[in-house]
């Protein structure tokens, strides 16, 4: 568990250093996430492991523990909205319209392109 947590913190740290050192526009934890996916892919080539082994590993356990409480983790930042209540009130209509239009447009664009390209490439179904 401690080793798993160490791996997560180490990747976050490397991501932060890379983001600042190389002036990358993406946030440090997101770079750490991408690096973790890449390193897992490379690691599997030298030492094959399956999904169960990953889930049972120190890393898998630490990740599962944190992700189980993920909704709690954005509460403290979310409470910061008390500082923006007047801005939210002023912009309520613009925000509501933008969110509804954008969410519908995103759903339609994603599902449309998915089905079109699936038909064009003849990809096999879900399984």
């Amino acid at each position, binding site marked *: 568990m401690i080793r798993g947590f160490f791996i997560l*913190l180490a990747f976050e740290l490397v991501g932060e250093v890379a983001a600042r050192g190389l002036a990358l526009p993406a946030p440090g934890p997101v770079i750490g996430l991408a690096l973790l996916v890449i390193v*897992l892919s490379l690691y599997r080539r030298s030492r094959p492991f399956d999904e169960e082994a990953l889930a049972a590993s120190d890393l898998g356990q630490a990740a599962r523990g*944190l992700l189980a409480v993920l909704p709690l983790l954005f509460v403290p930042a979310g409470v910061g909205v008390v500082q923006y209540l007047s801005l939210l009130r002023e912009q309520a209509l613009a925000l509501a319209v933008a*969110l509804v239009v954008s969410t519908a447009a995103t759903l*339609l*664009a994603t599902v449309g*392109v998915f089905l079109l390209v699936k038909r064009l490439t003849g990809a096999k*179904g879900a399984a």
Partner: protein
Amino acid sequence: MTPFHLWVYLQTTPLFWLTATLAAFLVADALAKAAGRRPIVNHVLIAIALLGGLLKLTGTDYQTYFNGAQFVHFLLGPATVALGVPIYANFALVRRNFWPLAASLLVGAVVAVASAVLVARALGAPRAVLIAIAPKSVTAAVAMAVTEALGGAPPLTAVLVIATGILGAIIVTPLMDALGVSDYAARGFAVGLASHGIGTAGAFAVDPVAGVFAGLAMGLNAIVTPAVIPALLPWLLG
């Protein structure tokens, strides 16, 4: 110690606001559970409202609150990295459906950012709001980090992200049924991309294949949108 002095002490100690954060979350989660976990009764939103109300009631400023709550907030960074584990575990699905996933992921991510920013801009929203709304389809941890990196207001993003999640989870089923889309992989992928974890939870309730593809879309979009936004935003802000 008089009750007043006791309160003065409590109000400034990190222990009190840390405990209050967990208490508010437990109450909110119990309410959401009692409501059958319908997307409209969102536990994170309720917890934020409870704590915001408590701050106002007690005249506490946000900085004092955050001194305590930062211990929870800190875990958001490693938790974001931890998203890499389920994303990696789903890679076999990516290989089997590579082109439909890659194409719809890229188009969906661009549409999600561009449509939100352009509509809000057309309705006169200020720059701070446009930055905050840009990553609204990405999972909250990543979206707030993106906003912070752009010098925007992460709390605004948190609220917009949750609202987007609720909206997508509510409209996806009637919308897809009306269009006659019966491919649950495509439906799930769309709602996970547009509405992250809240959409994914809704997708699992409809169909297991939809749920898996929704989770996959949420994970992939957490990587793609942070890369797309810095390139797209200067152009969208005009």
